[in-house]
C-alpha cells in the first residue's frame, strides 16, 4: 500500500476550518516563523478515510481474530466501554485545580475515587493512585515510592531483586530509579529458586519484584515465605500486576505480603490495547507508603461531603505524569468493573484459568511442556521437539497467521528455549479454543512430515516474512521527501 504521503496532491484539503470572525493578526517576526509549512499529506476526506480503513484491514485484532498473546491478556473489550468514555471528553483537567473548580467535576473525581477503592479491594491494598499511564510506568512509580520510603527511614538501599522469569520492564523500571539489579534464577520446579533467593537477600535490598502467577503461568506457593524473608531485611515486596487476571477474588496480593502493586487496566480490566496503548497502570500501596503517593490526589472532604483535589503533601514523590492518569482508559475500566461486579470478576479468573489448562492438557502430547503442574491463566510450551526437525517457534507463529490466528507470544519468557506462551483469556468460547488446538496439532504434525514447508509462511498476508536486519541496518524510520 502507498504511504499517505505518497498520495498527496498539492492544494488538496481534507477538512475545512471555520471562517475567522476576528481581524487577522500582524505577522510574527522573521526569526520566529517557520520557513516552510510542514510537508503534511494533502488529500480529500474520502481518500483519507479509505487509506486508514484499508490500513486497518491489514491488522489482526481481538475483534477479528483469536489473539492469545501470552502476558498481554487480549480479552474482548465490551463495546459499551467505548460509549462510556465519550461521555467525559470535554473536561479540562486543570478545571479541577481552580478555586471552586472541583465542584464542576464531581462526577469525574467520584469515578476516579471509586475506581481507586475498587482496585484497592481487588488487590488488598490500602490506597491507590491512578496517575501512572501504563504498567511499566506504574512499576517506576512503585520504585520511586519504595525509594522514598527507605529514604524517609534512613535505610541505605542499593539493590532490587527480580527473578529471571520477570518481565523486562521490572529490571528496567528499577534501573530508572537508580537501583542495581540482582537476578535470581528459576528452579526446576518453575519458581524463583528459594535457596538462591535466601542467599542473595541482604539489608541493602530495597525491594523484591515478583509476578505471581509468574510468566510461566505458575503460582508460587512460597510467596508468603518470600515476603517474610524480604520484610526481615526491610525490603518491600512489589507485585507486577500483569497477571492479575488469574487470581481475582482468589488471592489478594496485599493479604500475602505485597506492599506495592500496579495493575494493568488494559489487561485485567477489559480496556482495549490500542495497537500498543494507551494502557493505564494504577498503583496500590499499603499504609506505610501512603505519605509518598504522587500528587495530585483526590481526597474526600468529610465536612462538605465533596471530593477535593490535593496538590501537595510534605513527603510526596512529586508527579510521575500530568494529573489523574489516562482518565479515558479509567472510565472504561470502571464501567467494566461495575458491569461484571464481584461474581463476574471471580468468574473471569476462573474461566481464564480453565481455558489455559484446557489448552495445556490438549496440547501437551504435541509440544514440550517444560513445567507440568497446573497452570493459571497462561501456559508456556517449548517448540524444542519441533526444533529437532528444524522448525522454530517463530515458524509455528507464521503457520498460525496463515490459519487466521494471531500467534501466542514467542521467545518469552527468555528462560524457556523456543517458548510459546499462550494466554487464551476467559472471553473465548470452547469452539474457538478447540479450533485453535486442532491447528496447533496440525502444526506439530507438519513439523514432522514436511518441516521445510514453514520457511515460506506466511503466504496469506499482504507481506511475507520481513527482513529485520535490513530495517535495523538502514534505519529508515520516516519517509524522506
Amino acid at each position: 500500500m502507498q504511504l499517505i504521503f505518497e498520495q498527496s496532491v498539492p492544494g488538496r484539503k481534507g477538512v475545512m476550518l471555520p471562517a475567522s470572525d476576528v481581524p487577522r493578526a500582524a505577522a510574527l517576526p522573521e526569526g520566529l516563523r517557520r520557513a516552510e509549512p510542514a510537508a503534511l499529506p494533502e488529500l480529500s476526506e474520502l481518500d483519507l478515510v479509505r487509506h486508514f480503513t484499508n490500513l486497518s484491514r491489514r491488522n489482526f485484532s481481538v475483534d477479528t481474530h483469536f489473539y492469545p498473546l501470552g502476558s498481554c491478556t487480549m480479552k474482548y473489550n465490551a463495546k459499551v466501554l467505548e460509549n462510556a468514555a465519550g461521555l467525559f471528553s470535554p473536561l479540562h483537567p486543570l478545571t479541577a485545580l481552580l478555586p471552586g473548580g472541583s465542584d464542576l467535576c464531581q462526577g469525574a473525581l467520584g469515578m476516579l475515587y471509586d475506581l481507586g477503592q475498587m482496585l484497592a479491594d481487588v488487590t488488598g491494598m490500602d490506597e491507590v493512585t491512578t496517575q501512572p499511564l501504563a504498567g511499566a510506568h506504574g512499576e517506576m512509580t512503585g520504585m520511586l515510592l519504595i525509594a522514598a520510603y527507605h529514604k524517609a527511614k534512613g535505610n541505605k538501599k542499593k539493590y532490587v531483586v527480580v527473578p529471571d522469569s520477570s518481565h523486562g520492564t521490572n529490571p528496567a523500571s528499577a534501573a530508572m530509579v537508580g537501583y542495581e539489579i540482582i537476578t535470581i534464577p528459576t528452579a526446576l520446579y518453575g519458581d524463583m529458586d528459594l535457596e538462591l533467593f535466601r542467599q542473595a537477600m541482604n539489608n541493602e535490598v530495597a525491594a523484591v519484584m515478583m509476578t505471581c502467577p509468574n510468566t510461566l503461568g505458575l503460582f508460587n506457593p512460597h510467596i508468603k515465605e518470600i515476603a517474610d524473608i524480604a520484610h526481615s531485611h526491610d525490603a518491600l515486596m512489589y507485585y507486577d500486576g500483569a497477571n492479575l487476571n488469574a487470581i481475582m477474588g482468589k488471592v489478594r496480593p496485599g493479604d500475602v505480603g505485597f506492599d506495592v502493586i500496579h495493575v494493568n487496566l488494559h489487561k485485567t480490566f477489559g480496556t482495549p490495547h490500542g495497537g500498543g496503548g494507551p494502557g493505564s497502570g494504577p498503583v496500590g500501596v499499603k499504609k506505610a507508603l501512603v505519605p509518598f503517593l504522587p500528587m495530585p490526589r483526590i481526597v474526600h472532604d468529610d465536612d462538605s461531603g465533596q471530593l477535593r483535589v490535593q496538590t501537595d503533601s510534605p513527603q510526596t514523590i512529586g508527579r510521575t505524569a500530568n494529573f489523574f492518569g489516562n482518565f479515558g482508559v479509567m472510565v472504561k475500566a470502571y464501567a467494566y468493573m461495575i458491569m461484571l461486579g464481584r461474581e463476574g470478576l471471580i468468574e473471569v479468573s476462573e474461566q481464564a484459568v480453565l481455558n489455559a489448562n484446557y489448552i495445556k492438557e490438549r496440547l501437551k502430547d504435541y509440544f514440550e511442556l517444560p513445567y507440568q503442574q497446573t497452570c493459571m491463566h497462561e501456559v508456556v510450551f517449548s517448540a524444542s521437539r519441533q526444533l529437532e526437525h528444524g522448525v522454530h517457534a517463530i515458524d509455528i507463529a507464521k503457520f498460525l497467521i496463515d490459519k487466521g490466528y494471531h500467534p501466542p507470544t514467542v521467545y518469552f519468557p527468555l528462560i524457556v528455549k523456543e517458548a510459546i506462551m499462550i494466554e487464551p483469556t476467559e472471553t473465548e468460547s470452547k469452539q474457538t479454543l478447540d479450533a485453535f488446538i486442532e491447528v496447533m496439532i496440525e502444526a506439530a504434525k507438519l513439523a514432522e512430515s514436511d518441516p521445510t514447508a514453514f520457511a515460506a509462511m506466511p503466504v496469506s498476508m499482504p507481506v511475507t516474512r520481513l527482513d529485520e536486519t535490513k530495517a535495523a541496518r538502514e534505519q529508515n524510520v520516516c519517509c524522506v521527501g
Partner: protein
Amino acid sequence: MTSHYCPHTPQEIREMLDAIGVASIEELFVPIPPELLAKTFNLPPGRSEFETYARMQELAADNCSQLSLFIGGGFYDHLIPAAVDHLAGRAEFYTAYTPYQPECSQGTLQALFEYQTAICRLTGLEVSNASLYDGATALAEGALMALRATNRSKLLVDGCISPIARQVLATYLSNLEVEIVALPPLDGLLNRQELAAQLDGDTAALLVQYPNVFGCVEDFSPVAEQVHAAGGLLVTAVYPVALGMLTSPAEIGADIAVGDGQSLGNPLSFGGPSFGFIAAKKACIRNMPGRIVGETVDKNGQRGFVLTLQAREQHIKRHKATSNICSNQSLCALRGLIFLSALGKGGLAELAQLNRDKAEYAKSCLARIPGVTVLQSAPTFNEFTVSLPKAADQVVGALLAKGIVAGLPLGQYFEGSQNLMVVTVTEKRSRKEIDLLVKELEVALCN
C-alpha cells in the same frame, strides 16, 4: 453463569474439566496454598450493559461540560474532525496490540511509520519514535536521552517550561545522580545571563519550551549555538499546533524535540489519554526510548514495516534498556496522524493562524480593561499572560460561576505571581465568547 462475557455453558465447562481431568474449577486453584486464599472481596454485584451505561451517564452529568474554556496550560480545546473518531474507532486498530508479528500487523506498523514521518516533518528532525506516554514524560525521556548521549550529568532547565512538566522531570530524576539547575524566568523569558553563568563542560543539555508557560515565543537559535559550543544538546518542548506557524525545532538547531500530542485530535478527557512525541537528530537514534518502526522489504522485495532497533528496549536489554517503557499511546498517536493528515500542509498553517488571530484579538480587548496589563516581553501564539489588579484566583473563581474558565492563575506555580493569569484562545472560541469573557472580567474586576 453470571455474565455473558464468559461464554461457556455449564455443559462445556464439564467437558473441559473432564478433558483436564479435574472435578471442579476449584481444583485448578490448588497450587494456591489455602491459607493464602482471599478472605474478603467486596465489590458490588454486576449489572447489564444498559444499567452500566446509565450509571456512567449519571457520573458524566455530575460534571459541568459546557464551560467556555480560556485555559490551556498544555491541554488545548481544539476542533477534531469527525474522521478521527471514526477511523481510530476501527476495532482492527484499537483491539490490536503492539505489532510483535509484523505480517499480520502491517496496518498498525505502516500507520506508525507514517506517524513518525509526520512528527519528523513537523519538527524538522530526522528520527521519531512511535510515541511516549505524554508531553511531560516525553520531556523527562528527552532529558534522559541527552544524559546518555553526552555521558554528562547536569541539566539546565528553563524556568519558563510548564511547571507541571518540570515536576515530572524532577520526579523522574529524583534518585539518579543528575544535577538539575533551574534557570529562573526573567520577564517571562529564558534568563540568558543565568544560562551563560551555568553552562559548562558538565552540561548535558539545556531544556526549553516554546511557546513557554507564559505564552511567550523567543528565538532560541543563538542559545542552540551557545549550548552546542559547550558540547551540550538543546532539548525543546513544543506545542505541535503552534508548529503550523513557528520555527521548527530543527530550524532553531535543537537536537531533541518533545511534546504532547493531545492537541492533535485527542479530546481533553480530563487530562488523558494523549500521547508524547520525541524526535531527534539521527545520531541520537540508538539512545531513543520506546518503540521505533522501520521500513524494510519482505522475501519478495515488497515494502513492509517492522519494529526495529529493539536491542535498545526492555524486553531484550532489561535493566540496560534506554527506557522501561513498553506500552505506549499508539492509538492516540494514530489519532494525531489522522488529524495531521486531515488538515494537511495548508490546514495546519491555517489552524495555527486562526489560533493566533483569536488570541491577538482577545489580547487587544483585555488590554483595554483598566488595570489589566499584558505581558509584552515577546510575541505569543495562542496564549498570553495578563496581570490583573487583584488576585487571579479570585477572578477566575468569579468567572467560573458564570461558566467561563478565564485562564490559568500562576500564583501557585511562581512566587509573587498571585495577580498573573495565562489566557488561552483556540480556534474554538468565537468572537462572541471572547467578548463575553472581556465583559465578565470587567465586571469581576469592578466588584
